């Protein structure tokens, strides 16, 4: 459940808000639930709130794991 999407922070706004971008679509969201967000960060947005930041290193690791497992599948 809980539709939420990683979106890139493109601008910090007043009132603990930020503008995020998703595929060329921008939207103002609330940063009330997160800390230390900077422009360029990806945050996971749910009902107009950032729930957390995306950890780029962990994302890389997961993708690497996919590739490795897929390689096994492909070679099967």
């Amino acid at each position, binding site marked *: *459940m*809980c*539709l939420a*999407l990683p*979106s890139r922070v493109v601008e910090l706004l007043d009132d603990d808000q930020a503008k995020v*971008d*998703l*595929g*060329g*679509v*921008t*939207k*103002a969201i609330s940063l009330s639930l997160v800390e230390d967000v900077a422009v360029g960060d990806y945050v996971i*947005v*749910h*009902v*107009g709130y950032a729930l957390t930041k995306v950890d780029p290193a962990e994302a890389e690791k997961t993708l690497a794991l996919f590739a490795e497992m897929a390689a096994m599948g492909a070679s099967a």
Partner: protein
Amino acid sequence: MTLPRRSHPRPLDLNSGRVDLTHGGGGRAMAQLVEELFVAAFDNEILSQGNDQGAFSVPGGRMVMSTDGYVISPLFFPGGDIGSLSVHGTINDVAMAGAVPIGLSAGFIIEEGFPLADLARIVTSMAAAAKAAGVPVMTGDTKVVEKGKGDGVFITTAGIGMVPAGIDISGDKARPDDVILVSGSMGDHGIAVMSQRESLGFETAILSDSAALHTLVAAMIAAAPGIRVLRDPTRGGLAATLNEIASQSAVGMVISETAVPLKPQVLGACELLGLDPLYVANEGKLICICPPEDAETVLAAMRAHPLGGDAAIIGQCDADPHHFVRMKTAMGGTRIVDWLAGEQLPRIC
């Protein structure tokens, strides 16, 4: 020939039921209202064809007539406004019979207090659209309703056109193995309009695709007079329109997810709102179904036209007795692309 009956598990509740927004949403509730009330009451061969236009014979040949009401909010949106839309939309419904549009009528229902400046902007835009299309607004009507009994302005246009000899295009003509094409990217209009709804609060550079498609159609039928079906995927988007045709023609369909042209901003907005772009409205795109041997010719004719540059073959009809529209997903699985259930509402789940 009559509209094939869709299966509505429960008949309309004509005793205590009420009209709700789903009855106008382009989905199955609307189809049911149209079938069980309107088509049943008016009970004539022309309406029962189930097309977006009625075709009939006159001494000089075959003609079509179509109508649509435009109740869009906001009235002005990126890429158009209710005025140009009301010209394009009705020209398109006429053109989807392969017909050459002759002219339009326009009925305005204006809410008391509506700024004359906005009305002038709308009428000017409408006139420009009609002139650009070469289709005159031949007759009109103006009504004013009390404040609070309208929504700025509603426009209902009707259009008529003459079908060239030898052309026989209708929603019931698709056959197994026929090829399904679209003239460009899906969902641009709906997302452009939604981007103006303050409550949704997003921004995008996307423009409505609102356009008159009759010259594109003319180019297509010149290239391939054997085209079976044309229809513009407006309310309910590609999904609703394919289901309508599948049901009307009693065929199944399989389309390919990766073949459907979609702009990244449309995808982005849909992700954000929890919407499926296949259900988002278009106002300047068409679906074409043609015999397999014509597919490449039609595609080439579309791509050669300024309004068909992103045209694509997206799938094929088959003999599925359930008339399902299915989609091969990008993951290699299969899903149904169903009728829209009610309206598409932004969701959180």
